[in-house]
């Protein structure tokens, strides 16, 4: 035990002496959470639109005002003819063009129906889809209001209640995602590299011939990172709460415990990666390429998993961050107790054990 503590101290010294790395390790998550919390959003904001109003009557003006009054759209240009559409899209700024047909108000009055044509620049189909929906929602809202005012018979009024995130803040979606991504990458990369580094430098051999047991070596190497990552996790939660107004409805001890579990999972993945290679560069590339994109794309961080093709949804189930994000959202936003997240927790535990067992197997093979 005494030997082990000595070894542990050495590991801490390694990390804390390297000031530059330390600054990155603590500074990076903070910078990233702040940056991404403000910047990464799938909300639509300030999209530039152009309007081609063939009618120019009271109603079209009202609709235009409604649309521009929302914070979603800003007017780039009023067009006067259809010929301008092509060139304005090529220039690349305008994403949507609204076209009101002529005699708009008259037709609406007389036949109860009038047409608006929306053309989008769908090079970004996701945005195009969103802005059409947003625009349509504003127009639908307007026509509903019109009907209420004009005393239409038999009105059905829809009352909507938004649960858990009444202001529809996209930050609530992204903070848990950023947390999963940062913890996953930092923990896995750090461990895989620090272990391969010992191998590359040849110091691993020295450790292996020492009376320390392999398990002790691994625990000693990983321990500082558990603490480091835990500090990072707490920092991210605090930032989420105080900077972005994320609520923590559920139990904080449970939230922290789940974080520790996820950190352990990421570390054991790091250990697994380190058993597959003996140079730092390869370990880094493996952690980087193996984890970065899948963590961003398949965890539900940015893109909802339900919308993906079935095959990919199955693959997404194999991504540990996916389950972690569910747990975090449930605890923070819904105030869920352990009774409702035990399944996801169990999955995380299973992943952790799985990674550890494989690493131990691989490690033993190497020793023989």
């Amino acid at each position, binding site marked *: 035990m005494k030997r082990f503590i000595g070894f542990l101290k050495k590991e801490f010294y390694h990390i804390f002496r390297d000031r530059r790395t330390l600054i990155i390790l603590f500074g990076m998550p903070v910078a990233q959470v702040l940056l991404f919390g403000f*910047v990464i959003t799938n909300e639509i904001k300030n999209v530039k639109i152009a309007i081609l109003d063939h009618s120019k009557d009271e109603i079209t003006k009202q609709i235009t005002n409604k649309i521009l009054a929302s914070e979603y759209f800003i007017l780039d240009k009023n067009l006067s003819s259809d010929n301008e559409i092509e060139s304005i899209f090529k220039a690349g700024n305008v994403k949507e063009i609204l076209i009101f047909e002529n005699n708009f108000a008259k037709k609406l009055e007389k036949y109860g129906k009038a047409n608006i044509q929306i053309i*989008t620049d*769908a090079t970004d189909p996701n945005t195009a889809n969103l802005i059409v929906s947003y625009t349509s929602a504003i127009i639908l809202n307007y026509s509903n209001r019109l009907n209420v005012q004009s005393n239409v018979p038999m009105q059905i009024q*829809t009352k909507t209640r938004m649960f858990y995130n009444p202001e529809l803040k996209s930050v609530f979606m992204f903070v848990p995602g950023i947390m999963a991504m940062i913890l996953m990458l930092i923990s896995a990369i750090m461990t895989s590299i620090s272990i391969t580094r010992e191998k590359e430098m040849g110091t691993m051999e020295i450790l292996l011939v020492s009376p320390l047991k392999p398990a002790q070596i691994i625990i000693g190497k990983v321990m500082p990172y558990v603490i480091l990552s835990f500090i990072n996790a707490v920092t991210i939660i605090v930032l989420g709460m105080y900077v972005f107004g994320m609520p923590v409805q559920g139990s904080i001890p449970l939230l922290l415990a789940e974080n520790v579990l996820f950190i352990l999972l990421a570390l054991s993945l790091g250990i697994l990666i380190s058993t597959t290679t003996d140079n730092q560069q390869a370990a880094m590339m493996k952690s980087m390429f193996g984890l970065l994109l*899948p963590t961003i794309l398949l965890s539900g961080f940015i893109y909802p998993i339900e919308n993906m093709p079935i095959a990919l949804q199955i693959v997404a189930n194999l991504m540990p961050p996916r389950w972690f994000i569910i747990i975090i959202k449930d605890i923070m936003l819904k105030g869920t107790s352990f009774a409702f997240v035990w399944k996801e927790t169990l999955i995380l535990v299973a992943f952790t054990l799985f990674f550890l067992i494989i690493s131990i197997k691989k490690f033993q093979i190497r020793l023989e």
Partner: protein
Amino acid sequence: MRTIKFIIQKEFKQIFRNKSMLPMIFVIPLVQLLVLVNAATFEIKNIDLIIVDKDLSSTSRQLTAKFNGSAFFNVVKTTFSVQQAEDYLYQDIGDLVLVIPQNFEKQLVKNQKADIQLLINAIDGVVAGLSNYYATSIIAGLNKEVITRWYGVSKGNSAYKQISIQYSHWYNPELNYKTFMVPGILVLLITNIGLFLAGMNLVREKEIGTIEQINVTPIKKHHFIIGKLIPFWIISLFELALGLIIGKLVFDIPIIGSLWLVFSVTAIYMLVVLAIGLFISTITENQLQAMFFAFFFNLVFILMSGLFTAVESMPTWGQILNKINPIAYFIRVMRMVLLKGSTFIDILPEIISLSMFAVLMFSLAVWNYRKTS
């Protein structure tokens, strides 16, 4: 010039000799391209719906039938208790609850007015907003039908005003998000490879000590840096070609603009990326540090680039920050040229910016690399 040739030869040999790196460079990125492109969609298809129909009238049935028939909704539960429905929402069994209160139809006939409630899980604000819109428009459609049924076609039509919306999506009428993502993810992959290979390269020589031997030779600094850049530069261009072939064959992305233009801009862009990598190499002492620097900048640049989320939606300071983000410029150019067929003139501002970055970063890397301390 001859010295550059020797450095290039040496670098290529070292890259191809590192067996554990080769799959990282050539296989994994392309596999990721094939798989991950499919994930990147905001298109909403299956909103899990919970129906609470306490009315059970013909009108309410008509409404639930409409929801059942909609492509957006997927009825997962029906119950008569709002509390129960809220629990389902809480347990993530459904995303949206449609509550038709008791006496809905009666109210509608008697008071000419009736309410319907929607309870939505709003953790994902955007999805919640869209679900609300889809549900509301189905209900509005029902409203019109009801009026028509009671008052006849002519009265129904003129009384209930409806603004119909037709939309068409240019450049990508099917809203195929894959064609949009392929160029973006391709950019990300070649950036990653270039940045990390270059970032680790010089610092690795520092760590193993061979840099000392180079520094004591009369080699010119810029020759050395150029010799180090070119191999990665060639690999990245090769990778781009491979990715475009896959994009064309598998995802059928339109390649409308000029391929010459695509490759020329990529060549400039890669100079920026590689120079950043080498610059990181010159300011760090070991591979671990270099990796973290590269990782940090990479992640920030990528997530801000507009690859996954629209740049327009960012706060103004984010957009200003993006002016120094080479990835943002390049993704924009790739999408414009490949998908819209933009020409040299259209993307000239981006080309100028990228060239300036290239000159700046390359100078910084050369200047900061010291043969003599």
